[in-house]
């Protein structure tokens, strides 16, 4: 069997559903759930059977798909996360355009699967472009609100800019090796390797919402919360972290690449933490946390442990998705995402429970799986250097703080409501939280050891000091989160905090540094066009008009008179000549004789 089946099944099903899907929620849920379940089974089978795929495009270009242990892990994770999220979307999201939403989510998942399964840069690019386009369509799903398409466009342009890096990398690699295959990248050296490595990094950072591309994640919140869940947990954002981990073996040889990855990741982790702590918008808080967690994964990759990053990616997927779904449920119920106005613990206790599990995992509270992977990252950072480890510890403290704050503010004890969400709406979060709970097994030494062995992952060694310090700091962070939620629930609604909550002014910076200069350049170019280029044309027009007027005044007589006079002469001659045309054969005969005589005279004179 070919590996192409795994991405193609959700893709084709998604297109079919988007085009011809039923309006009924249950039917949609059943169909999409079935498709994704089948995809999951296929993925498992593919991993177990070691399927590959190859397609000869011609001209030396071939599309290939092959799995390594790391990608196998992600390959299983993606449909596993997408299944409950998509079913939840079918059961919960607004009825209008639901088949399109569900279909696009399937397509989105298929694209991500393709990215994961890809074994060459071209296939990767195809999947990459597909998920980019799907994210645009999904963020702008509710296009009747004019802000949503704009947000989708913002996100699209931002990630698209990053895509340039991938294109650059692919072209450079192809130019240098004549092949797009990952395997061929190993032989790269010198500037080409630099171009490829940093191109991929640029692309990954933009997709993963790393500094300075982070703001697009906030704008991406315009989409439905299911989309956010899918986008943050399993697909688009995850793709950035995944591709770095996947290509780490070949790219880490590039000068300064690991350090750069590490730096970007650490900066994002810290900045994202601050932003999330100060954020008052439930989904944006989660978005900031996503940036921060992805930053931690970058740190792990930069430290030389891509396997750890992948494990954290999986754990993150399973707890971030229910958090988004819960936030969505809460926001839809409350009509707002302002944290200081939610407190829905009593309204939806089961959701609150699921969110609690996921939030604790986010906060890295043992014994949850998220905590284990985070500690592994700490160990990796420790290997990179104490300052890095310290940064990771600080980031951990902040994640504990914003996770606690989110949980308490969103699902704290508030007013009761007689109506709880229906079961179908909470199945998704519950299932995902359950998986998070199961991941707790990672704390068991044999389990994690076996998993690492299975995946061929080298687990870093760490000291107990840092572990203890980390746990202590996490506790402190949790405490500060409790404090903040009690004392100042409206943190981030006004003042400096609010300003800082918007990515520490990064969007403004982007606006000032990029957008405005561009606009100014465009404006001045336009005015230059108007004045200089257009001026020449206007002058030509004026000159021509003057020439036309002049020629009309003076040239008329000459240009018109000449043909008219000729015509008059010709018609006069014609009238005279017509008189020869009598119709009388004897006249014609006489003309003939005359002509013949002329010819003979001519010939006689000539001879």
């Amino acid at each position, binding site marked *: 069997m070919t590996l192409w089946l795994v991405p193609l099944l959700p893709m084709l099903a998604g297109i079919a559903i988007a085009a011809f899907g039923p309006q009924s929620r249950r039917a949609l849920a059943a169909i999409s759930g079935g498709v994704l379940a089948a995809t999951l089974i296929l993925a498992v089978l593919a991993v177990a059977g070691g399927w590959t795929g190859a397609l000869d495009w011609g001209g030396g270009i071939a599309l290939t798909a092959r799995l390594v242990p790391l990608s196998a892990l992600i390959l299983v994770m993606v449909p596993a996360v997408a299944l409950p999220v998509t079913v939840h979307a079918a059961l919960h999201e607004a009825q209008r355009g639901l088949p399109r939403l569900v279909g696009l989510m399937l397509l989105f998942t298929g694209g991500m699967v393709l990215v994961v399964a890809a074994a060459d840069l071209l296939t990767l690019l195809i999947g990459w472009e597909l998920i980019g386009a799907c994210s645009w369509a999904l963020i702008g799903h509710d296009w009747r609100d004019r802000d949503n398409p704009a947000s989708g466009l913002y996100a699209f342009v931002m990630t698209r800019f990053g895509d340039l890096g991938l294109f650059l990398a692919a072209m450079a690699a192809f130019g240098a090796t004549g092949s797009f295959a990952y395997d061929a990248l190993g032989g790269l050296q010198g500037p080409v390797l630099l171009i490829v490595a940093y191109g991929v990094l640029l692309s990954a950072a933009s997709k993963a919402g790393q500094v300075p591309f982070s703001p697009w994640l906030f704008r991406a919140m315009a989409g439905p919360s299911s989309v956010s869940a899918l986008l943050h947990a399993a697909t688009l954002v995850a793709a950035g972290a995944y591709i770095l981990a996947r290509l780490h073996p070949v790219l880490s040889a590039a000068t300064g690449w690991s350090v750069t990855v590490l730096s970007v990741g650490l900066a994002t982790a810290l900045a994202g933490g601050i932003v999330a702590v100060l954020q008052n918008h439930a989904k944006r808080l989660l978005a900031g946390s996503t940036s921060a967690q992805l930053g931690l994964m970058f740190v792990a990759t930069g430290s030389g442990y891509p396997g750890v990053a992948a494990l954290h990616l999986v754990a993150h997927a399973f707890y971030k998705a229910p958090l988004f779904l819960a936030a969505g449920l809460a926001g839809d119920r409350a009509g707002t995402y302002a944290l200081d106005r939610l407190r829905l613990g009593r309204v939806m206790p089961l959701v609150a429970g699921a969110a609690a599990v996921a939030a604790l995992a986010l906060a890295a509270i043992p014994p949850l799986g998220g905590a284990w992977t985070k500690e592994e990252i700490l160990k990796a950072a420790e290997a990179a250097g104490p300052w890095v480890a310290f940064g990771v510890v600080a980031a951990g403290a902040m994640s504990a703080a914003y996770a606690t704050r989110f949980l308490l503010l969103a699902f704290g004890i508030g007013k009761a409501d007689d109506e709880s969400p229906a079961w179908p709406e909470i199945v998704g979060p519950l299932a995902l939280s359950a998986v998070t709970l199961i991941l707790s097994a990672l704390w068991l030494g044999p389990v994690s050891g076996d998993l690492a062995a299975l995946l061929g992952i080298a687990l870093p060694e760490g000291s107990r000091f840092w572990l203890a310090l980390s746990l202590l700091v996490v506790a402190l962070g949790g405490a500060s989160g409790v404090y903040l939620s009690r004392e100042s629930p409206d943190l981030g609604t006004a003042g400096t905090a609010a300003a800082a909550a918007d990515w520490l002014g990064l969007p403004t910076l982007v606006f000032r540094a990029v957008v405005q200069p561009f606009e100014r350049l465009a404006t001045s170019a336009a005015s230059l066009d108007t004045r200089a280029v257009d001026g020449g044309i206007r002058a030509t027009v004026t000159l021509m008009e003057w020439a036309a007027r002049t020629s009309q005044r003076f040239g008329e007589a000459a240009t018109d008179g000449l043909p008219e006079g000729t015509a008059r002469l010709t018609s006069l001659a014609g009238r005279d000549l017509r008189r020869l045309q009598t119709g009388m054969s*004897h006249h014609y005969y006489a003309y003939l004789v005359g002509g013949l*005589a002329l010819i003979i005279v001519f010939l006689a004179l000539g001879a």
Partner: protein
Amino acid sequence: MTMTDVAFYLLSGFAIWTGWRVFRVDSMIRATFLLLLSFTSVGLIGLLLSASYLGAATIFMMAVEMMVMGLFMVMFMMNPAGLNPMMMVHQHRLSIVAGLLIFAAMTGAVLLTPLPSDPVAADRPVLRDLGIELLGDSMLIFETAGVTLLATMLGAVVLSSRRGRFGPTDAGSVPPGLSAGGPPAGRQPKGGGSHGGHGGHGGHGGQGGKGAHDGHGGGGSHGGHGKNGGDGNHGGHGG
């Protein structure tokens, strides 16, 4: 000055005189036979010039042709008998000048050109030469002439047949008016009338006062029976 010369000058003078008389007599039949006389003279000159076959053939052919022409004269033309003086000419002065000019120019050319002299040898087998030539070197030309004559026969029959592709060819025919564009003068043919009878219609009404004339003689066996043959088997005669 031999007898041959005398005969030549006599025949030449006769040929020119009869040729001139062709256009000066009132009767068209006379004109026709004057033309025949002119041809005959030329044929006899040909005999004098030792063109024995050509001379005889000229007389032969022209007799037949002029006979046919005479028939047409009587069929179609006014004043066949020459009972009335007749002068049906146009651009007369121009024609005279043209004829004289041509004659003068050609005579001048003849007189001014040094003509070669290579008379045919008395013992030359001219008739045999002609036969060999016609069926030898120039056979293609000769046969082409034959085919052309055949096509002429067919064309003449088709053109002169009253049965056209779209009914009788004289359907809707209208005699010309007395003045240009005027009302038709004379009898109009009856539709599908008896075959072969052009005869008996009462003249053309004057033709601009160029003299009265009697009706055209009847009994037109139309087409050229003698020369071009072909349609002889429906020889409508009678009149």
